[in-house]
């Protein structure tokens, strides 16, 4: 029970930390709304040309745009979360202090990231979605159960996103400068998460490949649950499987990395 309270406190800290920057949050909401507007018009042009592209009708495509903008920060599709800080701590050697703490490294950062995700869901998610719903005819579900199913899928998405970024950050133990891998990971996430374009619009085999990669758990999977184009349970199974695999990989890398740590005296 004690451990549970510790990680809950870390998560609450993660939430409060981002909640402090109110102007920045407002500015971010503005950005997500501007990009939502631009994307909504381009999607309209796209679906005007090819109705039912990727199995979505126009309303679903617009919903995809605005909910996608609302979720970008929550699932850290563009990076910029805890991983930069963790990479910095590994580079400077502060990581040694973290390893001495009576808390698990992976769980610690997962809790902090969950707090961050929850804040971004509320702080940066709600307003763009409301603005989008006021300006465009969105196909939002009316059943509270669908919304609940969607939020669970978002939760899974956050965990998968964390698991990927944790492994990426730990690469800094070997590379010293983690900027390169972080950038590569960011590119893959943008391309394969459905942020660039819905994954079912990708042509042929490329579309099939990106749909089974872990990044599709970030945006595409929760959005499909919301739009009613995917079964929630099989979506959870897919996301959960990737979460387990990637978290386990993170554990392995973590134990290999901690054996590498040399604490300089003095």
């Amino acid at each position, binding site marked *: 029970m004690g451990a549970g309270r510790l990680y809950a406190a870390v998560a609450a800290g993660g939430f409060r930390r981002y909640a402090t920057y109110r102007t920045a949050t407002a*500015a971010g909401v503005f*950005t997500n709304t501007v990009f939502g507007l*631009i994307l909504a*018009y*381009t999607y309209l042009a796209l679906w005007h*040309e090819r109705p039912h*592209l990727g199995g979505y009708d126009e309303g679903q495509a617009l919903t995809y745009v605005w909910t996608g903008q609302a979720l970008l920060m929550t699932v850290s599709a563009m990076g910029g979360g805890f991983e930069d800080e963790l990479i910095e701590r590994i580079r400077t050697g502060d990581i040694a202090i973290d390893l001495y703490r009576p808390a698990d490294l992976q769980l610690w950062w997962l809790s902090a990231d969950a707090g961050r995700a929850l804040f971004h869901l509320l702080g940066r998610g709600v307003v763009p979605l409301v603005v989008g719903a006021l300006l465009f005819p969105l196909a939002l579900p009316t059943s509270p159960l669908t919304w609940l199913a969607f939020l669970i899928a978002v939760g899974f998405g956050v965990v998968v996103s964390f698991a990927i970024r944790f492994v990426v950050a730990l690469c800094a133990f070997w590379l010293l400068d983690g900027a390169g891998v972080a950038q590569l990971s960011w590119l893959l996430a943008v*391309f394969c998460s459905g942020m660039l*374009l819905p994954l079912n619009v990708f042509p042929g085999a490329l579309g099939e490949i990106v749909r089974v990669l872990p990044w599709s758990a970030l945006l595409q999977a929760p959005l499909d649950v919301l739009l009613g184009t995917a079964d929630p349970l099989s979506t959870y199974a897919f996301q959960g499987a990737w979460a387990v695999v990637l978290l386990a990989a993170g554990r392995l890398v973590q134990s290999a990395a901690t054996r590498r740590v040399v604490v300089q005296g003095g």
Partner: protein
Amino acid sequence: MADTESRGTEPYGPARAEAYGRVREGLRAYRLITAMWIRSTMAYRASFAMTTFGNFAGTALDFVAIMLMFSRIDTLGGYSLPEVAFLYGLSATAFGLADLALGSMDRLGRRVRDGTLDTLLVRPVPVLAQVAADRFGLRRLGRVTQGVLVLGYAVAALDVSWTPLKVLMVPLALASGAGIFCAVFVAGAAFQFVAQDASEVQNSFTYGGQTLLQYPPTVFAKDLLRGVTFVLPLAFVNWLPALYVLGRPYPLDLPSWAAFAPPLVAAGCCALSGLAWRVGLRSYRSTGS
């Protein structure tokens, strides 16, 4: 350097000479600070190569998205892929040049917040030049390269009967477009004096503006087009000159000579943003901590 000795002997009167001197001084400072950052970047060549490539690939994803769209459609908003590529290439290159020159301006808010702007104020060098050259990122050449490549593809693939005027339109649009985006960067930084924590607002006008311009104007609602033509004149970056080259009418009723207005619009924008910068800098109160 000949910069210092010629000051005061200008034939335009002392006030004007002083203004010229300030500009020259600013450019010189900008050159020196950028050179310093380039040298420091080049200390880690592998890292430089990687980040430049990352910059290239990151921006290329935008065009990949457009190509993926065109794998499913033949025209978007009535425009073919080479035509969209032409719009994209012009705006991406113009934006890339502005981003290369002034891309660090959005860090100003952070400097206002943590008080490090004070350090820049006490140096005998124009603050704008210091902020603009701060952490100059040569890796941003990746973005320019990507824009130029797409523009090259578009020019090769377009079915346009090139006249001398149409050929001239390309460099004209690139230079004025870069000027307009530079003005947006400076105006955005001036806004940071007031807002401090709002660099993302600036991003929505810079990166957002570039994203908007890479698609044909026919895609967007008339009100949005009016906004980016008459209020924040982004339409002059690429839409108006490109539509002249492509021989298409502009969705709003504008006279055809509007396609030649970008240099004037760019000059006007730069003057206004310069004014905004001065007002912002004057209003600056240090955090005092």
